């Protein structure tokens, strides 16, 4: 038997077992469940607020409207109303759907996104697991989502769904490679795949301008990679200008066309979780994770900073959605393969040279 020299730290699980005095393997498993429950719920709440409420409010600001304002303060209770509405709807199972896979597909999307959050450092002990290969893990599980999309598109027995599924595959293949290659350039700087170490590598001060210390976040160190990653991430989560798999005006709703009620909610939830997972990855790789932007603000807990950062990435995607046209499928593939891929490799090579020179 080969033992891999990998060590996985589990900060949150350790903290919980310590706090509740749970020990032994049973205690460890129990505290792991509690920890997972905690992290999962934090993200679900985030997506739950973002889905029905924040998205409407943000888009409304961009488009000169008011949006929800009837239920509760600022229309916040729309979240409850929407939950009731969506869950109370009839689940319509169209004729001829490929049954087990049609049911599995909606589960895969939120599952893969939630799994990704397991290794994201959210400040303090709020990190479920911190394996040495954290970055690889997060990309691996995030890309499971496309499997769900393809299954959903293919099993729906609907031509629009199938086209949507096919588009999703084409897009994910085209954009995941630049995404990962760009992330690799960050790894070169940090010298580790472990996410907590990537975060701590960004803590050192970069420059001091007028008494304000700018930390060496990789967004500042290598803005080029940051921009590349932001663009590739838009494609990864399927938002404008790359909302091609759904493309409401072309494919009705793409792979979600035939899904209703709870299954639709799961797809919807999965998408929002993916937007946030993308935000979390960006925050971790480029924006110093849970660190405060300037040291004088570090009295605010890291978790708050982390949430702020992923919400600003969410805001960015909503901004894109409100202002940028959708590219055509062939143009998108071209941008991915001919543009982003080449640029991301150039970025990787230049970074490698730079890191080599500094070392």
């Amino acid at each position, binding site marked *: 038997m080969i033992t891999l020299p990998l060590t996985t730290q589990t900060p949150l699980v350790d903290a919980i077992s310590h706090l509740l005095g749970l020990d032994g393997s049973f205690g460890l498993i129990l505290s792991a469940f509690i920890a997972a429950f905690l992290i999962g719920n934090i993200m679900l709440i985030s997506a739950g607020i973002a889905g029905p409420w924040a998205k409407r409010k943000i888009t409304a600001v961009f488009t*000169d409207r008011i949006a929800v304002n009837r239920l509760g303060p600022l229309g916040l209770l729309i979240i409850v109303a929407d939950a009731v509405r969506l869950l109370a709807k009839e689940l319509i199972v169209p004729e001829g759907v490929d049954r087990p896979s049609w049911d599995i597909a909606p589960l895969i999307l939120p599952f893969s996104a939630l799994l990704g959050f397991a290794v994201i450092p959210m400040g303090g002990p709020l990190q479920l697991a911190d394996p040495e290969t954290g970055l690889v893990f997060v990309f691996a599980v995030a890309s499971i989502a496309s499997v769900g999309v393809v299954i959903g598109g293919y099993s729906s027995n609907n031509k629009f769904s199938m086209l949507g599924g096919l588009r999703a595959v084409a897009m994910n293949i085209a954009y995941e490679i630049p995404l990962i290659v760009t992330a690799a350039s960050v790894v070169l700087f940090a010298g580790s795949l472990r996410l907590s170490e990537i975060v701590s590598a960004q803590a050192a001060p970069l420059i001091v301008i007028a008494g304000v210390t700018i930390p060496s976040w990789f967004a500042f160190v290598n803005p080029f990679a940051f921009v590349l990653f932001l663009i590739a991430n838009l494609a990864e989560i399927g938002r404008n200008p790359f909302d091609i798999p759904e493309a409401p*005006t*072309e494919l*009705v709703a793409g792979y979600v066309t035939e899904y209703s009620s709870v299954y639709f909610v799961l797809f919807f939830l999965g998408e929002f979780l993916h937007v946030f997972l993308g935000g979390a990855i960006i925050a971790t790789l480029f924006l110093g994770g849970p660190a405060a932007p300037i040291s004088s603000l570090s009295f605010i807990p890291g978790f708050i900073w982390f949430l702020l950062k992923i919400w600003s990435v969410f805001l960015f995607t909503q901004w894109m959605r409100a202002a940028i046209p959708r590219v055509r499928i062939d143009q998108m593939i071209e941008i991915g393969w001919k543009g982003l891929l080449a640029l991301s490799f150039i970025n990787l090579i230049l970074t490698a040279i730079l890191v080599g020179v500094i070392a």
Partner: protein
Amino acid sequence: MSSTPASSQKNIVGISKNGTLDYTKLEKLLGPLVLQKEDHVNAPAFVIRPDSVEEALTLLRDEAGFDHLSCVTAQEYEDRFESIYHLRKYDSPQHELGIVVPSPKNNPWNQSACSVFRTADWHEREAYDLVGINYEGHPDLRRILLPDTWQGHPLSLDYDQNKPQLITLQEHENPLRDTDEENTMFINIGPHHPATHGVLHLKTVLDGEHVVSVDPDIGYLHRCEEQMAQGLNYRYQIMPYPDRWDYASAGLLNEWAYARAAEDLVNIEVPEYAEIIRTMGAELCRICAHFLAVGTFALDIYGDFTAIFMYAMRDREIVQSILEDLTGQRMMFNYFRLGGVVWDLPEPRDEFLSKIQKFLDKIPAGIQEYSELMTTNEIFQLRCVGTGILPPDVARQYGVTGPVARGSGIDYDLRRDDPYGYYENLDWNVVTNDGCDIYSRFLVRLGEVEQSAKIIGQCISLLESWPEEDRIIQANVPRTIKPPADAEIYRAVEAAKGELGIYIRSDGTQQPARFKIRSPCFSNLSTLSEMATGGLVPDLIAALGSLDIVLGEVDR
């Protein structure tokens, strides 16, 4: 099929020295084909035999420069059927000619004009569908507005309206048929699809993402507008209906189409003051309609209810409230009357006029905003430049008019070329663009908004200074209108989407014996397969959006 535009030829037959049409020369050109000459109110017409349609139309197109088949009207008389081909020239639309083709009662047929004008394809299908004339040599003579299983032809004289129609299940069946070729997929885009701008059904065959063929299936919104008008009187009852053709806020433009035809039919002079109000209202409608076109087109390209859509709606809302002040309605205006308009500007006049002026002042900034958000956006250009190409000669063949034609570089605008209303006396330009693509159609619409604003501005200053005692909004029109029996007229106006023509034949009663609507969207939509075949699905959607169709007008 030769489709050389006649304008490129030097010797156009049938034009007298002062530039007007010389019908005797035209008659000579057609020679023995002409059986008889008829006088319609708009222009003379030649009666020809049903088997000489192709020959006559080819001669007229190639030798006499009639390159625009505006409309095909079919109707049934007590003793015969009749098809009328209304011909015009793109270069000089005032040169009109009708070709009347009578056909026997027991076997109504005539030669199809499809090989001469491709636009005849859809028009003859409609004539076959509603009246029941068979067009020999038509490549695809099936029903266009009614379901395939419909029994009888509703506008024929012996049609029994009370007989129930049996629509078989076959008709409702989802036609998920496989195509004959391998590796292609048949897909129904619509009738319920976010991008079809209403209930339009595109039978599309795809090869991967590429469009192999697309066949628009229309008629879902057919409301028998023509037949309804035939049961209503000229004076009061028809006017509310035009609002329902192009209901996307172009109501006054449609009303003007009917008003112009009916007024010319019975020689009603509209007072100058009313003409100015009409012109102003119509241009407000045009702005309204173009804003909607811009907004929904953005929806097709951007894919969501994005900023640009909402901005267009916001600006359109201002025009809507102005029109509401003027007409009392937001959508179904019913503001025109034969011989004028129903009431004067709302009081206080100054407030109303300054409200319009305030809106006009905002337009340049608004156009600037659209340009920044859309026309200068690189992704937008990537999608629109060089896609959905419609070359001018193809556009002429399909009888394309309006912003779609002007986006293909065809300088054709009835407001200038066949003047009506107060347009002659105002200073404005026809916007054209030679791009022939989706982008140029979009630019033409934005440009037309500016020109309309210019027209409205001049109307306002005229209305402001108009002496109070001369504010005549309505000519003296008899309570009942009975045009002379067998008077026929075809008159068109420049509606938001192009040439909106009305053909009326009177039988001496208060109601028209035949009321035919020539819808610009109908002809424009027929070019879709020409634009979209070979492109990608997103291009198909963008091309459809750039046509700016309103199904209420396509189906009538």
